[in-house]
Structures are given as structure tokens and as C-alpha cells.
């Protein structure tokens, strides 16, 4: 067929993107203490500032342990979004100050991606952050963005952890101090470093009973001051032990069994072994980040346009090696739990299947498959969590790997007998929060986008059946299916 090229590919992306709905000098993601302070400081210098916070998080998201490891221990009050909005607002007096300083505040609004031109993409008209609330998503332009996304819970797998009542320390604190919506009464807390000690103290302040702290190392780990406060509160610490299992019923956890054999009645097991800086947005935008064991994990390396504050920038450095501590817990739990212990709850991947690089249960496992394992894969190259997750599905679920990504990396390091830091960080991908199609959707896309949209590249010769080439059918084909880049 005769083709006359116009010099323009009408199916290419250039010029099709809509501008952002709004622009601000500064966008702050996360209205905790650090984020709100950064927003107020900027507003006072005359900058236009948008401060967004995803709390209150919707009930379904909390049920999927997004963004924190809520473990199904939120009360039914969290289903009432109006009441939660008020609770969140009232629990942070600084928000009112921010509004008085001229900061625009959006609660119940998550940031799911930050985008700018760089390697592999030059088509963005300007740098934008993607936002979403319960009704829609939109884009906002910015000069600077401050990430104050906090830190999320490190989850740990043991028999019975995949039931309501096993949760994280950051989620517990959030439910107690911001939502006033925690459903448990009697806790066992895993860990004895500062996080666990603070968790136990906050819980007792809120009238909860802390049955015990459990410490895998031979001695309590936290600061002397916090240890004294915990001792004064009459809370026991069981050292040199780990959790063997959680048992329970339809409502979730009813007891924790320690490796000593001791059984402790409780309705909640709070994993307070570590917090992980929430760097999803930085990593998903290919921003620089580096592992810092004293500050809780991978933290943003920091730059002028995109900066991080609060625990997103790293936990306070007290000289404690968080990675080493987590690895001690992971080794102990791996040594005492059965190989069929679930590691990835969303995809029901067991430790045996993870380390055996076996496919999910809905696929057959022929003999050759059974002979494969992490060990055989290591013959081809170093362990890579992104490869393992595509083969086993660990980390591919609706919680977006929040519950298992750290554990998978630790298990790979242990199994491959390499330092944790040599295991690449499994990539984060936008949207860094699960967002329904109908809310993510751009229902008002540009005419240019609509006009440029083709299922593939819009190359008129590409899909002409080989039998039709050089026949009249070839031209029919082009006229019916293509209007693209050719005259």
C-alpha cells in the first residue's frame, strides 16, 4: 500500500496530557507533626501550600492493612467517614493553625504517585503529584514537594498471624490516638526496643492491659528510661523467646503461645519490632534512596525539589541497628515455625513456596518445577525480590506488599546467606495506594488524548494479514482500521 508520511505520529503521547487542576508552591504529603509544621512554615513565608493527609482511611483499605497494619482491630466506628473525619481533625490541633496560616488542607486524600520528566520519560508538561479522595483522582502541579508520609509497620509471619488481632505498632497508635477506634483490650507486644516500650506505655495510658512484652534477644533492648517506665507499670518482658503461634476463633486472636510453651490470653498481638520509613512515593518516582540500618531501612537521599521530613526521612538515629534486630527476629521465627507458614497473606504464599520459588496453588507443579528452588535460581544470579515475586506472587496482592516485602527480603538474605543490604529493594509502583478504577479514571481527558488513543502503535501495516498484502484487502484494512499517522 502507498503510505504518505506526515512527519507527525498522531498516536504518540506528545501534547496529549492534560495540565494539572491546580498548582502550589509547596505540596506536603502527610499531616502529622513534621508535615504540618513544614506546611505552616512555608505558608508564613507567603508560599501557596497544599497539605494532604490520607486519614481517615476508608474501611475497606484499613481491612487490607493499608497504609498501616491495622490487623482487623478497628471498631465499627471507622466505617463512619464523617465521624472519622471529625476525629482526625480534632486529634491534631495543628491542623487548625495550618488553616489559619493559609494552608489548604485536604483530609481523606491520598497521594498515589509523583511524576516528573527524567530517564525514559520526557512527555510530562510539568511535575505533578497524583491525589485521590473517595470520589475521584486528580493531578496537582508543584514547585516543591515535602514527603511527610511517616513510617509503616514491619509485619512478621508466624503461625496464626493471618487472622484479626495481629497488628502493628504504628496502626495501634493511630487507632488509639487519632481515630479513637481500637477494638482490643488485652495485648501481647512483640519486641522490647523503644518502639515496643512506647507502644506498651501508650496502650496502658489508654486503659488497655498489656499482658507481656516478648523479646527474642536475651535482654530488653530499649532505653533505660523507657524500661523503667514499663517496669513501673508492672509489665513483664519475656526475654530469649519468640512467638510460636497465635490461636483464636472467629473474632481473631484469643491467645499467644510463646516458644517457651507459655500461653498468654490476649485479643491482640502487636508486632512492635520495627517501623519502616514510608518511601513508596520516592521509590516509585525513581528518586534516590539508600539503606540506613540505624534509621529503620531505606530512606530518601534527599534533594531540593522532593524532600522528606519526620520518620519518612528516617527514624531517629540512636545507634541501634534496626536491620540486625529484625533479622534476629526473622531467623528465630523461621527456625521455630513450620515451612508451610504463610508469608504473603494476600496471595497465600508459604515460606516453603517462597524459598522453593514455586508457583501459586492454582497452577500445576510438574516434576521439573518441584526440582527448582531459590538455590537453583541463585546459580543464575543474585537473589532479586522482583523476580521472586513474579514467580511466587509473594508481594503481588492488594496490600501491595506492605505486609510481606520486608520479610521476603530478609528471608532471601537468610536463605542465600548474604547480607540484607545486598538484596535489592523490591520496586514500589504507582499507584502506591490501591485505588478503584472508577476513582483513578480520568473522566475528563483531553481531546488530544482521545484523538491519539490507539490500542497499540497505530502502524497501519502491522496488523495486515500476510495473505492480504498486495491485494485489495490491504487497502480496505487500512481504511477501516487506521486513521493514524498517515495520510
Amino acid at each position, binding site marked *: 500500500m502507498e503510505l504518505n*508520511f506526515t*512527519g*507527525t*505520529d498522531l*498516536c*504518540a*503521547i*506528545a501534547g496529549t*496530557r492534560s495540565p494539572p487542576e491546580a498548582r502550589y508552591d509547596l505540596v506536603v504529603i502527610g499531616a502529622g507533626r513534621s508535615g504540618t509544621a513544614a506546611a505552616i512554615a512555608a505558608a508564613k513565608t507567603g508560599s501557596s501550600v497544599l497539605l494532604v493527609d490520607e486519614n481517615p482511611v476508608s474501611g475497606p483499605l484499613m481491612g487490607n492493612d493499608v497504609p498501616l497494619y491495622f490487623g482487623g482491630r478497628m471498631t465499627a466506628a471507622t466505617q463512619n467517614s464523617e465521624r472519622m473525619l471529625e476525629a482526625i481533625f480534632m486529634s491534631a490541633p495543628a491542623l487548625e493553625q495550618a488553616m489559619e496560616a493559609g494552608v489548604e488542607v485536604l483530609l481523606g486524600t491520598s497521594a498515589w504517585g509523583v*511524576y516528573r520528566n*527524567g530517564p*525514559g*520519560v*520526557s512527555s*510530562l508538561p510539568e511535575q505533578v503529584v497524583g491525589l485521590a479522595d473517595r470520589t475521584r483522582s486528580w493531578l496537582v502541579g508543584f514547585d516543591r514537594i515535602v514527603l511527610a508520609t511517616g513510617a509503616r509497620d514491619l509485619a512478621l509471619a508466624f503461625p496464626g498471624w493471618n487472622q484479626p488481632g495481629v497488628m502493628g505498632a504504628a496502626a495501634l497508635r493511630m487507632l488509639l490516638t487519632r481515630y479513637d477506634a481500637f477494638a482490643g483490650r488485652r495485648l501481647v507486644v512483640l519486641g522490647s526496643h523503644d518502639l515496643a516500650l512506647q507502644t506498651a506505655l501508650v496502650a496502658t495510658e489508654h486503659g488497655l492491659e498489656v499482658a507481656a512484652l516478648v523479646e527474642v534477644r536475651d535482654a530488653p533492648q530499649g532505653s533505660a528510661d523507657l524500661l523503667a517506665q514499663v517496669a513501673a507499670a508492672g509489665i513483664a518482658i519475656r526475654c530469649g523467646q519468640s512467638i510460636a503461634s497465635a490461636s483464636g476463633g472467629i473474632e481473631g486472636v484469643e491467645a499467644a503461645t510463646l516458644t517457651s510453651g507459655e500461653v498468654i490470653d490476649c485479643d491482640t498481638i502487636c508486632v512492635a519490632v520495627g517501623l519502616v520509613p514510608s518511601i513508596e512515593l520516592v521509590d516509585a518516582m*525513581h528518586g534516590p534512596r539508600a539503606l540506613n540500618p540505624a534509621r529503620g531501612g531505606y530512606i530518601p537521599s534527599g534533594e531540593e525539589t522532593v524532600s522528606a521530613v519526620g520518620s519518612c526521612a528516617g527514624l531517629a538515629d540512636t545507634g541501634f541497628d534496626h536491620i540486625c534486630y529484625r533479622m534476629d527476629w526473622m531467623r528465630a521465627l523461621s527456625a521455630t515455625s513450620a515451612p508451610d507458614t504463610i508469608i504473603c497473606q494476600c496471595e497465600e504464599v508459604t515460606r516453603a513456596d517462597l524459598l522453593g520459588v514455586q*508457583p501459586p496453588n*492454582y497452577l*500445576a*507443579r*510438574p*516434576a*521439573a518445577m518441584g526440582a*527448582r528452588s531459590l538455590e537453583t535460581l541463585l546459580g*543464575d*544470579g543474585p537473589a532479586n525480590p522482583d523476580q521472586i515475586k*513474579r*514467580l511466587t506472587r509473594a508481594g503481588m496482592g*492488594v496490600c501491595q506488599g506492605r505486609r510481606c516485602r520486608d520479610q521476603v527480603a530478609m528471608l532471601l538474605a537468610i536463605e542465600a546467606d548474604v547480607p540484607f543490604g545486598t538484596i535489592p529493594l523490591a520496586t514500589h*509502583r*504507582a*499507584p502506591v495506594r*490501591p*485505588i*478503584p*478504577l*472508577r476513582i*483513578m479514571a*480520568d473522566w475528563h*481527558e483531553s481531546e488530544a*488524548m482521545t484523538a*491519539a*488513543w*490507539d*490500542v*497499540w*502503535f497505530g*502502524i497501519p*501495516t*502491522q*496488523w*495486515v*494479514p*500476510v*495473505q492480504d*498484502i498486495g491485494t485489495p*484487502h490491504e487497502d*480496505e*484494512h487500512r481504511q*477501516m482500521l487506521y486513521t493514524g499517522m498517515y495520510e
Partner: protein
Amino acid sequence: MSGAEVVIVGGGVTGLSAGWWLARSGVKVTVLDKGIVGWEASGRNGGGASHYQSPLFDEEHRMWPQMDDLLGYPTEHQKDRILIAMTERQWEQYRFVAERHKRLGHPVDVLDVKQVQDAVPLAGDNCFGGVHYRFGGHANPQRTVQAYAWALQDLGGTIVQHNAVTGFETAGGKVTAVRTAAGDYGCDTVVVAPGPQTAALMAQLGIAVPLANARAEMIITEPAPMMPIGGVDGHKLYGRQTMRGSLAYGGGPHEWIDVDATGPAARPSTPLMRNLASRLAELLPKAAHLNVIRSWAGVIENSPDGRPIIDRLTSPDNVVVASMSGVGFGLSPASGHAIRDLVLDGACSFADIGILGLARFADLEADWRERRGWMPIA
């Protein structure tokens, strides 16, 4: 010097399938990759396997249902596809496509709205109808790539990952070795199939392979209940319901980018995700509540006519080049067979693949990319 009878440059789906086919014929094969097998578009694509336009189609169609058994590892291959029309214009186009398939002898059924919903329960009343391809299908890209790699190893082949090819040694009109960071690999024949790096690496042999690289994007949702037919296209989207139940979909405008011999620097996705989401919510309205949980991008090389390039060079005469122009995954069982034939027999045994030869570009204008507008954004 390390070496093998055949050294394959690029552990993507095409190079691995070629290696597997050669290993099945008892050839000693080594596959070299700059990173992990399938780490470019081979492992991140729509998983479609219904390339009726290709001279390799019959072989694609014949091979896929056998692949799990032949490889010994799961590929998640599923048969059939359905194309759903969401506008009057699409309905006209898809019925044209259906008539064309009937003329070519490919079995298709034209479906009314009720029949569409029976096969695709996530579809709504908002469609005009559909076309059921009773041929082709889809599979899981990364799982399939790994299956080829493992099957190749099981047959005695070697895969060397994290070892980028930097060039070639030539002597007497032949490539005698493939150069890598970790030393040379001697070879009797070399297969060059490194996806977006093809043009830059072939240039080192003095061979111009006209290819332009572009970035394309996809999204994936949380799982939905399994539908009778998961290979659902339409509304200018391509994609599939995976065997886990997730909806993985792509389409829409691409971005032309430059890629050098070391490969793509990055594969970022963009807010195009929102436009994919709106179309998918229209195509499958009963899935509109499902969460999008990931997006990703891949880099695809395209030839000027969008058709693959599979050819054996005349000089040096022991080089087979293969670049699949965006349809490499689905055609892989057939492309590997064709490459095996070119390596061992000098000609494809099961199809006339002359149209895939480099000779068709003999008269190509030097400014073919500019003429098509296939240029990176300045």
C-alpha cells in the same frame, strides 16, 4: 574463552525460545543477558498470543497449547479471545475484523450483548457486541520467560545473567566470538535478539537494522472472580484477566525514546494510568470498583512497518537477527522455531518468512523515523 555452538545475545522471550528450540535439537547453547531473563518487555506485556497477521501465526497457534507440557513448567496459557465494541465505530470495525477472519479461515463468532456478558461477566449493557476469536489466547509473560529459561537449562543449555554483551569478534566473514564484560564467548553461530538494544548492537557489526524504541504502559487490578474467557480486548485496550483473576490492561499513546547499546535507562509509568483506568472501567463496568494496585511500563522496539525482523545475514554469514516489533511474546514459540531453522538449516521449515527479512528495508529512506514522527520529544 567460554563458548558454545550457538551464543544468543539477549535472554528475552525470543532469544530464550530460540535457545530452547536449538537445545531440543541437541545444540550446545549459551544465552547472555545484561540482567535477569525477561527483564525488558518480554516479562512485562499484555501476554497476548493471537497474531493472525503473521506468517508465524499457524505455528503460534499450534504450539501454545502444548507449551506447558513441552517446557515442563507452567506458562498460564489460556485459549481464545473476545473483542468487545464500546462504540458504534468500534462495532463496525470489529465486525469488519470478524468478516476478515472468516475469509481467512480463522474461526470467529459474532456475539450479541447477552452472549458477551455470558462469556465476560464483568462486561455491561453499555457494549454493542463482541467478536469471539476461537483461536489464539494469552499467557503469563514472566512465568513463560522463566519456563523457557529453565527448560533450556534442563536440556543442557547455559544462561549467563548480569553479563552485558559489549560487541563481537569477527574474522573471515564470520562472528567468532561475542564480547562481554566478563570475557569473550566463542561461537559457531550467534543469534542477536536483545530487544531495544538490537539496533545499537547490530550497528557494531556494520548492519543497519531500522528500529525505533518507545515506552508503553499497563495497569493491573486486584483479582476479580474468574470469567469464562479472560482474554478480553476492545475499546482500544489490550489485556487479559490473569489466572489469579487480576485485570492487566494497556493501550493508548506511546512515547518514542532513544536507547543505546546498554539498554533502557528506566521504564517509568506516568499518569496515563488514569486514562487506562477510565477505558477499562467502561469496557468492564462491573469491575469499576476494583482497585488498581500497580502500573508499569515497557520499552518496545518497532520496525518501520511494525512487522518483526527475523533474518540470517549474508555477511557475516553466521548471524541471525531477530526483533519482534511489539509482538514477540505471543509469537515466541514460533519465532524460536524459525530462528532454530535459520541457524541449523538456513531456511524456515514451516512458513515463508521472507516478508520478515531485512531486504525489505533496502530502499528505506535515511530519515524514516523523522518522516513517521517516531522521534523522542525534544
